[in-house]
């Protein structure tokens, strides 16, 4: 009996060891990524990185072969990312919150099932396809690539995320809140704006920030909607480059390897910082 028992215990320990091994292995890519980003990316970090626009391939080749640091920076990308993501948030956040409020309202189950299915379907749409659609609707008819088009494609990607996280924020409020507000004589509108939304606002804002952090890293749809630009542009009707797009551009150029690493590091840190800010507003997990 005891031999059998210790056999079982041994197997248990073996499997436990295997599980721990797998778990540690799973984290290795992340550690490798961060390590490489810092080790390779520090080279191009200098003040100019943030205040100059991206260098041309010729410049890069010149400086690289001379063993010097590549000049220039990603300023046009930073401003571009900012405008494109800002446009996306301005479109997706109000629409998403309203839609979540609509779904939060009491509906017959078939109705609400339908909308849930719809949102779930929208969530799965790959970013590149959203870009294709925006190209068809906005770029082709007007023959212009623009930050606006880029922002709309990001908005399409962010929208289902924001709807879902806002809906989750609303649904996890105490069920009686609506009733309390109603019992005090509040109109539906007042109960929503004066009680429900203020109580859920931390989660909602956090959800929007998390969605924005994802949007910052999106590349593919922007290439076909915002095209790209080497200048700092604030006119949203003109093409623009985001940091993610610049990263892709640098990658395609063999002499800009150093810029690739530094830009990747920058992008990585931006996303992390946005997420930390989101977490500081709401400490739990956001469901997207």
């Amino acid at each position, binding site marked *: 009996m005891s031999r059998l028992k210790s056999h079982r215990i041994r197997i248990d320990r073996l499997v436990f060891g295997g599980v721990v091994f797998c778990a540690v292995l799973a984290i290795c890519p992340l550690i490798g990524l961060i390590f490489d980003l810092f080790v390779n990316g520090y080279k191009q970090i200098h003040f100019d990185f943030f205040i100059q626009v991206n260098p041309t391939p010729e410049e890069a080749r010149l400086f690289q072969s001379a063993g010097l640091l590549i000049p220039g920076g990603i300023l046009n990308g930073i401003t571009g990312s900012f405008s494109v993501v800002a446009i996306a948030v301005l479109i997706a956040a109000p629409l998403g919150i309203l839609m979540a409020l609509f779904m939060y309202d009491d509906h017959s189950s078939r109705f609400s099932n339908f909308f849930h299915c719809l949102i779930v379907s929208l969530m799965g749409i790959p970013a590149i396809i959203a870009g294709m*659609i925006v190209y068809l609707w906005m770029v082709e008819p007007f023959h212009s690539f623009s930050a606006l088009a880029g922002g709309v494609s990001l908005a399409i990607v962010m929208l289902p995320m924001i709807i879902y996280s806002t809906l989750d924020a609303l649904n996890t409020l105490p069920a009686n809140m609506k009733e309390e507000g109603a019992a005090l004589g509040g109109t539906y509108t007042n109960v929503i704006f004066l009680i429900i939304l203020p109580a859920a606002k931390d989660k909602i804002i956090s959800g929007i920030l998390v969605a924005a952090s994802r949007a910052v890293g999106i590349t593919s749809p922007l290439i076909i909607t915002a095209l790209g630009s080497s200048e700092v542009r604030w006119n949203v009707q003109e093409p623009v480059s985001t940091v993610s797009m610049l990263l892709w551009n640098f990658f395609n150029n063999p002499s800009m390897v150093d810029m690739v690493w530094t830009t990747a590091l920058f992008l990585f840190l931006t996303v992390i910082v946005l997420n930390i800010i989101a977490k500081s507003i709401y400490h739990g997990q956001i469901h997207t």
Partner: protein
Amino acid sequence: MKDKTFKILLFLSAISILLLSGGMLYSLIAESLPVFGHLGYLVSGEWFSYIGYTLLIAVLALAIAAPFSISLLLIYAEYCSGKMIASTLAFVMDLFAYIPSVVWGVWAYYSLRPVFGNDILLVSIVLAAMIIPYSVYICVNYIPLVPRSIKEGAYCLGATRLEVLGTICFPFMTKGLIAAGFLSLGKILGETMVVTILFGKTITSVIFNRFGTNNDLESGALFALSLFLILIIVAVNVAARYMFKKHWHE
């Protein structure tokens, strides 16, 4: 604001979402029409291979990721449940999950590509690494974990941790694990940048690389492929959420 105005506003937002979805579907179908007359073109080797590669890589990535995700899930939920390790793990996973795919792709290209010969294997591994945090997150948040009382009952009878897991927890969680797998599959299928940088022959890569072509037939094929991809992703997502809904009510 008056109640009526607000309710109309809400209704309008719902209508606009409907119009958006319908419009997207319509545009995709309309643009892929040119190719439906020449279905032979589509089924020819080239395009077919893209579909094949996409599915192959997705399934491979999922298969590679599965043991790691499950291990992490077990550590979080069972072995170290409630301890500090579990919450740091959750924190790290969260961090992991939002790293832009371009960053993954670029890093893998420079750091991992020289090591691996085979592109397909490399891409699957990187995709697996990317999907692990997402799948763990889904499992942790959506699979209702086994009630403590049942587990305690088994432990009292002298079962080892492994036995409790195998005989009690797993059957309980299987449906949830499958649904999580579906959702992860959907995410992998939609991934563009990593596969483009490392491999370049999946549906999303092809769309990304060749979009804007003047060739009507080719353009139609791109749209048809995207329709196909969306259909699979939507089917997989809806099935997964449906499974979760039923699971929740249990």
